């Protein structure tokens, strides 16, 4: 290698180092500069958290992109020829001798050694070093500027960019606005320790849902005006620490409203307590109440326990009562008590009756019990239902005591016409295989059932005509003809009631309503007569047409049930005081005795209307009034809470609140909404 060649390669190393270092510095400048810009924008106009959370990745991408771009631009620093050309550019006096000396074509020629001699005293290395340093100094200076800007940026601003998260609203530096202590409220909720859950932070919540006893911390930016928290009649001064004011309080057991005031304006925060439920306990074994014949053996116990936040302990509780008459002894024991962990558990145990000292006639009342971890408003105790295990008394099974069955309903003993038809059809099919005696016996059995059904039909007819149920038997059964025409039967019915049938029943021709209603039943009645007669002489084939006719007539009678008899209906008198719940007190008025018309809902309704008026006028406190109403509704009108909440949200977001307001009004008992399309239950016509 010639002396010129070594010099060029040395210059190349200098330039490569300068390119790399310069690229890295520019990369830093672009990254930090971008973050500086983001911080400045956030300080002046506020950047949403969603955008801020992307700033670090975006700055990284920009930095890497800058690095790659700068390296690409400086890639010729790696080429000897390019470096030689660059040196020729820096030192024009070389007159391309250096480039020629680096040319491989002249590498082993006398020209090369001559050029090397001429280039030896040139001394371009210093120039190259100075040029390399220049390429580092500019990005170095820029880096110093952006890093200095970042270093001197307010800590809150840099935190908002580097660690965006809930609650950083208070970190924002107000450069372009006056400090408003109530502009941003940050609420941090630390659940009670027993819950073992992390704190949560919310920015500008309208309401806070938290477990009773949770540590609630409300913070804001401290300004010239001090902030006071108002809870009912109580005013609590907030504590200012550095640039923030804060106040802490435990989550109350009932919904409450806290108002924060700075002397000029106010903001309110609705506190909605979440109750730690008592454990839910299910006794799996024994599955039902049991009677044991002897006081021996082991009773298996099993229970499933669950809690919303955590179980502390569980056990079985056994109450043993022994004795009889008026002399009983009781004992209570805890079985298998053990500490629990987690939100669900299984509990198992066994009770040895012998070890328990149970005797004949003893009662064991068993239930499972669980205790939760609630150390604030608890502990919550959950119990299962109680099962009773009884040990039979001595001699209990020596006698048999049977309780009589209740009398069977008359109708249930009747075979339907359809079933009678099926029996008759079956008998007709089997007839070739049966003896005549069997056919006669079975046919007469069907005839007896047919007769019972016919009597029932007659009872219905006679009941309509005002006679007693026995009317058919008393007045028709004995008639020699047996089957009657509808008019004959009506006449007989009239005779039974000592009245002229036609006159009493408004009988005009064949189609009075009475006949229209009863005609199908009368036809069924007559068809049953004919069927019964045929069955009685062992002629089921002959009976079947009449049975079909009877069934068809019954069907028509059912269809006719929609027709009402004419006549003056009995006057229904409404007990108005009872309906109006007005009682007998002379001072009572329907309005003040009617449920829902007075009381807390009426007051809420009045407030609701006043709030709506304020909202309609565009008054800023209208929305607050609705929120206050919602707080009151949590206890007095829970069904109005959801529509009120929706209405407040809609008003706040500029959406149409009409539907929600209407539902809220209905829930508060103002004007009920008649949008129910169907009723779940109704009377048939």
């Amino acid at each position, binding site marked *: 290698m010639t002396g010129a060649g070594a010099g060029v390669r040395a210059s190349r190393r200098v330039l490569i180092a300068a390119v790399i270092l310069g690229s890295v510095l520019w990369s830093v400048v672009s990254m930090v500069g971008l973050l500086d810009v983001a911080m400045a924008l956030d300080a002046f106009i506020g950047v949403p958290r969603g955008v801020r959370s992307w700033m670090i990745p975006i700055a990284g991408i920009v930095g890497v992109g800058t690095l790659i771009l700068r390296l690409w631009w400086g890639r010729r620093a790696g080429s000897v020829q390019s470096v030689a050309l660059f040196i020729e550019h820096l030192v024009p006096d070389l007159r391309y001798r250096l480039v020629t000396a680096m040319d491989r074509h002249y590498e082993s020629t006398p020209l090369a050694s001559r050029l090397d001699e001429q280039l030896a005293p040139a001394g371009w290395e210093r120039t190259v070093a100075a040029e390399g340093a220049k390429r580092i100094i500019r990005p170095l200076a820029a880096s110093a500027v952006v890093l200095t800007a970042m270093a001197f940026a307010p800590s809150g601003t840099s935190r908002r960019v580097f660690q965006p998260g809930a609650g950083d609203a208070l970190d924002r530096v107000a450069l372009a606005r006056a400090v408003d202590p109530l502009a941003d409220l940050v609420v941090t909720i630390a659940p009670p320790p027993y819950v073992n859950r992390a704190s949560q932070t919310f920015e500008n919540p309208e309401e806070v849902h938290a477990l009773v006893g949770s540590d609630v911390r409300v913070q804001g930016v401290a300004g010239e005006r001090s902030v006071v928290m108002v809870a009912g009649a109580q005013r609590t001064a907030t504590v200012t620490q550095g640039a923030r004011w804060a106040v802490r309080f435990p989550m109350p057991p009932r919904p409450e409203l806290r108002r924060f005031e700075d002397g000029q304006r106010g903001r309110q925060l609705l506190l909605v307590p979440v109750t730690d439920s008592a454990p839910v306990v299910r006794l799996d074994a024994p599955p039902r109440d049991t009677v044991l014949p002897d006081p021996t053996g082991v009773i298996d116990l099993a229970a499933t326990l669950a809690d919303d936040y955590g179980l502390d302990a569980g056990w079985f509780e056994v109450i043993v009562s022994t004795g009889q008459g008026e002399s009983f002894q009781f004992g209570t024991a805890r079985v298998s008590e053990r500490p629990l962990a987690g939100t669900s558990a299984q509990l198992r145990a066994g009770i040895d009756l012998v070890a328990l000292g149970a005797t004949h006639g003893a009662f064991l009342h068993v239930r499972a019990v669980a205790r939760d971890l609630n150390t604030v408003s608890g502990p919550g105790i959950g119990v299962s239902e109680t099962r009773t295990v009884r040990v039979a008394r001595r001699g209990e099974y020596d006698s048999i005591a049977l309780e009589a069955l209740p009398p069977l309903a008359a109708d249930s003993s009747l075979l339907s016409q359809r079933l009678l038809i099926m029996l008759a059809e079956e008998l007709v099919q089997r007839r070739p295989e049966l003896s005549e005696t069997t056919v006669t016996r079975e046919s007469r059995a069907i005839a007896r059932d047919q007769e019972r059904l016919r009597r029932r039909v007659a009872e219905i007819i006679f009941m309509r005509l005002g006679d007693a149920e026995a009317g058919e038997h008393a007045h028709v059964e004995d008639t020699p003809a047996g089957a009657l025409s509808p008019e004959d039967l009506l006449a007989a019915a009239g005779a039974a009631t000592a009245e002229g049938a036609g006159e009493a029943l408004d009988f005009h021709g064949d189609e009075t309503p009475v006949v229209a209603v009863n005609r199908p039943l009368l036809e069924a009645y007559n068809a049953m007569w004919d069927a019964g007669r045929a069955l009685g002489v062992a002629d089921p084939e002959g009976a079947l047409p009449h049975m079909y006719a009877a069934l068809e007539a019954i069907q028509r009678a059912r269809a006719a049930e929609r027709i009402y008899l004419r006549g003056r209906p009995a006057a229904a008198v409404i007990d108005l005081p009872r309906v109006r719940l007005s009682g007998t007190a002379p001072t009572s008025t*329907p309005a003040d005795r009617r449920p829902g018309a007075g009381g807390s809902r009426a007051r809420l309704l009045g407030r609701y209307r006043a709030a709506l008026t304020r909202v309609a006028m565009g008054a800023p406190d209208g929305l607050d009034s609705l929120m206050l109403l919602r707080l009151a509704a949590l206890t007095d009108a829970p069904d109005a809470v959801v529509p009120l909440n929706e209405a407040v949200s809609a008003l706040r977001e500029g959406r149409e609140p009409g539907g929600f307001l209407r539902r809220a009004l209905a829930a508060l008992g103002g004007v009920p909404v008649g949008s129910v399309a169907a009723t779940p239950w*109704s009377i048939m016509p």
Partner: protein
Amino acid sequence: MSDFVFATGQYESGDWDSAPLVPANVIDAVARYTSIPVAPSGAIVSLASSDVLRYPLLYLTGHLPVRFTAGERAMLQTYLARGGMLFVDDHNHDVDGAFHTTAVEELERTAGPLVELPNDHDLYSAFFEFDGPPTTAHELNGWGDNLVHKQLRAVIRGGRIVVLYSNKDYSSEWSYHPDNKRFLSVDNTRFAVNLVVYALSR
């Protein structure tokens, strides 16, 4: 001021008394929800009688064909001209039924054309708020014409309903003993209150 008396119109043809429990139920609803002085029982009044003029609201229903006599038609015209309101309900809930075809014909001959009542009419907000005529279980169960009628029809004079005609079968829907309202999650007779309030206040 005398108590409001719910009157059922009695006409010669048809079965005017097909819904005997409706009056009691309407009276119960009026008493339950309003402070309107109301008589504890309804009245039955012949359409041909001048007694109809004593009642601001007259209820007419039935399943069978309706043919007014000359006397009934004349008295009904007088009644409507003097400010009475007639509420007619098709107990068949059947636009092809005998009651509907004949009643509509008779009403149009007596009072004028029946037009569809808009569902935002004052009637539907006279007391309770409704989006239109409440649907009946009988419509949904497919009785009668198996239709859910979206609108009621009415004869309107001077901006006021004088005849309200319904195919909704409120006569079936409301014909149960008022004591059984306790089984309903939503009282289906509330629309009757609107009818009464409208008849008394418009």
